[in-house]
């Protein structure tokens, strides 16, 4: 049989026909398209679908910002999958802000510190918890032996709560008075209350009932105070026929949602408030009680002389007629309320401005009245057992604090050649990012020989630290979260762990307790608790049962009773108004954008994703500028922004909502730590603005800085 070309042809054709007719071809075609439908199609995609399971909801509290909203976490078996607002929670009643909702992304943040770290050279190496605690305790006991315990300092985010309480207790029993908190609305309220009503008080604003809110730059719907509580108060404004007037140089979201936006030259809010006080006094619209305030007559004299309507309008740029009309309608309103704290209320604020605005509240007599400003005692629900201090502790503790606020501490450390601070604890704050002029802050921290960071992420400050003792994120820890930040009610929430800790981290309370125990002696005696849980139950015994059962305890709610004495002599001396540093012609002011976080934690990848391309384009920050001021600059084009503190390459967004002569740059960008979704995008506005210390209060009150753009 002669096999020739034709038979091969036949063979080939036969095989092909056989295969095509058999179901194999169709099956492979069908299966290959089904393969593209599975999530394990490509090695870099998911290797298995998200597993199903029993749905359960656990309630907890979010402590990402001082708002302390109640959250409800949806879980599949033991996997948390979604965070939303907790219905009927006294603060936020169901809503939640975008950062809280994206909370789970912090759990798996690429920049999370997985185990305790020890710095050697400029690299970190992993060490165990016991070694880390021993090392810290060793260092601290050397400092104590050297006889100057006050050289231990601690920077925390807030002074309230059991964990801050433990830090304060450790410092006190160690013998150091140097416990500092980062500037926040809570600290500013306490300073203002101290200036006008005496120590140990704070202020709450009853926004839910006020029917005429006068906001001096407060971003009521941009993260000011307790954000979601303010959102709800603003949402009900229309039904309550309440008015909102927003006074700030820029058309912010609050100004856009307000009934009236009053553009004002940056940094002159204090003068406007005093101008309005002058009008109220002149037209005799003030509350009769006001005559009894100490320094009242001095104030009236000073206002007549310094703050006549024409003079004020010349300083602030607001027409005199408007000032008068606004002051009169404010005084005449049933429940007027003036609010202060530019933007989110943290960052830099001036005491003169806050006191002036609060004087408005005092003059119209809406103090401790429905819809007014509540003067509340500091939230002291904690019952720590008395500290037993040995004499080094007593001697050290009696010494004066190195500085009243963090920026003074930084200045002192930089100024002196020999170390003023030997060891520094940094808890839940990021001074190397959130304070003005971070370069000098880094310099100062570099000078401190021993820095311990309790951060969950390797952020700017933790990178400068020698030891990092990573703490749980808010979804992994049990902690009491007291409300604050201008809330009209005082509430304490309980953050509950909704998931087993993902990495080898600890509750910061446990870390402090184990450090104290390692120090033995008189310090250890003050920390008898086995674990932080036991300590928490012990110190919040009064409200522990309601805390543990329904996760929240409302300390005080309605209008506070009792007489409040008002002393307006501080403002009567007419302290000097802060001017912007530098002599360029334009003014650069920071913008608090709700979708970013300015307090040092970085925004989550989801939050960064919602940031508009008129704020962040690629890795370039976009500044807002009025078209008139930006003559020659192209919209979305590049420009160089120069301030006395430095220069930055920015993009330009021609925005009619910005006052001519003012440039706005968003806060919360320019992070430099290792998280590609969030870091190395844009510029940290604090790099461009230097601190300006207000003489009357010692606060950093720089509302912006002079700048030029080309």
């Amino acid at each position, binding site marked *: 049989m002669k096999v*020739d070309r034709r038979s091969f042809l036949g063979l080939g054709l036969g095989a092909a026909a*056989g295969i095509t*007719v058999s*179901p194999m071809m169709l099956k492979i075609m069908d299966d290959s398209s089904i393969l593209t439908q599975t999530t394990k199609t490509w090695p870099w995609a998911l290797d298995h679908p998200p597993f199903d399971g029993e749905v359960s909801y656990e309630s907890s509290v979010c402590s990402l910002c001082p708002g302390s909203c109640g959250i409800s976490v949806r879980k599949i078996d033991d996997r948390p999958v979604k965070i939303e607002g907790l219905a009927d929670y006294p603060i936020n009643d169901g809503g939640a802000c975008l950062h809280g909702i994206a909370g789970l992304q912090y759990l798996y943040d690429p920049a999370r510190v997985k185990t305790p770290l020890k710095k050697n050279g400029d690299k970190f190496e992993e060490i165990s918890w016991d070694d880390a605690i021993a090392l810290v305790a060793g260092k601290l006991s050397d400092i104590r032996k050297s006889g100057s315990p006050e050289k231990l300092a601690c920077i925390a985010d807030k002074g309230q709560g059991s964990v801050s309480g433990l830090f304060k207790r450790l410092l006190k029993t160690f013998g150091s008075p140097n416990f500092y908190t980062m500037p926040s609305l809570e600290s500013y309220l306490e300073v203002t209350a101290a200036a006008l009503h005496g120590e140990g008080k704070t202020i709450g604003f009853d926004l839910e009932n006020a029917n005429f809110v006068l906001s001096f730059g407060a971003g009521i719907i941009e993260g000011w105070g307790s954000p979601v509580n303010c959102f709800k108060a603003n949402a009900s404004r229309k039904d309550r026929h309440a008015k909102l007037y927003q006074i700030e140089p820029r058309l912010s979201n609050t100004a856009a949602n307000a009934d009236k936006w009053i553009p004002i030259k940056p940094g002159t809010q204090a003068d406007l408030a005093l101008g309005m006080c002058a009008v109220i006094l002149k037209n005799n619209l003030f509350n009769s009680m006001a005559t009894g305030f100490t320094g009242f007559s001095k104030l009236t004299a000073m206002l007549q002389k310094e703050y006549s309507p024409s003079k004020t309008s010349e300083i602030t740029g607001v027409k005199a007629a408007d000032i008068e009309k606004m002051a009169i309608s404010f005084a005449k309103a049933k429940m007027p309320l003036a609010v202060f704290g530019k933007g989110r209320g943290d960052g830099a604020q001036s005491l003169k401005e806050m006191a002036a605005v609060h004087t408005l509240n005092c003059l119209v007599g809406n103090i401790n009245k429905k819809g007014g400003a509540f003067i509340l005692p500091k939230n002291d629900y904690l019952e720590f057992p008395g500290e037993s201090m040995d004499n080094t502790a007593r001697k050290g503790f009696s010494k004066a604090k190195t500085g009243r606020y963090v920026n003074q501490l930084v200045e002192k450390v930089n100024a002196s050649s020999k170390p003023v601070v030997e060891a520094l604890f940094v808890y839940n704050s990021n001074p190397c990012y959130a304070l003005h002029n971070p370069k000098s802050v880094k310099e100062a921290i570099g000078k401190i020989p021993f820095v311990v960071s309790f951060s969950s992420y390797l952020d700017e400050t933790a990178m400068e630290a020698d030891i990092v003792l990573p703490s749980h994120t808010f979804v992994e820890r049990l902690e009491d979260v007291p409300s604050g930040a201008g809330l009209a009610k005082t509430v304490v929430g309980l953050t509950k762990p909704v998931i087993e800790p993902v990495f080898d981290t600890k509750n910061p309370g446990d870390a402090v307790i184990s450090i104290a125990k390692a120090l033995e002696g008189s310090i250890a005696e003050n920390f008898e608790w086995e674990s932080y849980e036991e300590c928490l139950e012990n110190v919040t015994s009064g409200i522990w049962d309601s805390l543990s059962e329904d996760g929240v305890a409302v300390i005080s709610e309605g209008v506070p009773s009792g007489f409040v004495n008002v002393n307006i002599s501080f403002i009567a001396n007419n302290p000097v108004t802060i001017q912007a540093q530098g002599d360029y012609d334009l003014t650069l002011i920071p913008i608090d954008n709700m979708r970013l976080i300015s307090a040092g934690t970085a925004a989550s990848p989801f939050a960064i994703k919602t940031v508009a391309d008129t704020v962040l384009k690629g890795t370039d920050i976009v500044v807002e500028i009025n078209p008139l001021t930006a003559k020659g600059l192209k919209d979305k084009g590049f420009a160089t922004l120069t301030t006395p503190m430095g220069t930055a390459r920015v993009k330009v967004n021609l925005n009619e909502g910005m006052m001519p002569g003012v440039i706005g740059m968003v806060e919360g960008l320019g992070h430099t730590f290792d998280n590609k979704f969030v870091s190395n995008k844009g510029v940290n506005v604090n790099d461009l603005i230097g601190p300006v210390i207000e003489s009357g209060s010692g606060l950093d009150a720089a509302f912006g800085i002079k700048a030029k753009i080309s």
Partner: protein
Amino acid sequence: MSEIENKAENGSTESAGECTSGDTKDDKGLGLGVIFFIVAFVVCFLSGTLLFPKLLYSKKEQPFNFDHELHVSEAGDCDACHSVREDGSFTGIPKLAVCLDCHAEDPLGETEDEVVFVEEYVNKEKEVPWLVYARQPDCVFFSHAAHTTNTDCKVCHGPIGESNSSRVYEENRLTGYSRDIWGKNIFGIKKHSWDRMKMDDCAECHKKETGHQGYCFQCHK
């Protein structure tokens, strides 16, 4: 026909002889080609139909044998272990906790499968990695709550309740899905309703029961 073609045809006669114009030889050559064709056809067709499914589906054994019949008589009907929760979601294959209602450290019966179960899983508190015959693809949403009220489990799962040994779990090597979904018979011919549980099978029953095949999002997620 175009002129060029005529030219080409005449030209073929005197061109070089190396091309074998086969047609002038005997016609057996053509027959040989046909035979090869048929042989190759049959071989390939059979391999495609019989051999290919064996290659496509991998055979796996359950971690240990499970006797449904015994458990049905002991613990009660299907929903004793596979129950619908009160929020309507379906528990599916029971977790170890459900087994521990009856089982403990020492085996109840004498089968050595139960010994494996007790030693490997109960004592080590490890979930049993069951291979789920009826696992639908990831994109499918199936509501047992909606079906258990009016359809018998046998309709989709077959007589598994009466079986006393775990049959072999066949998984499609390409897609990773169980063969019970795509059907035993490669041509998709179904003897019982549970031989295949693809989209068309669901559509068929929905069409009968509700008059409409159902909208996409009823069964997709």
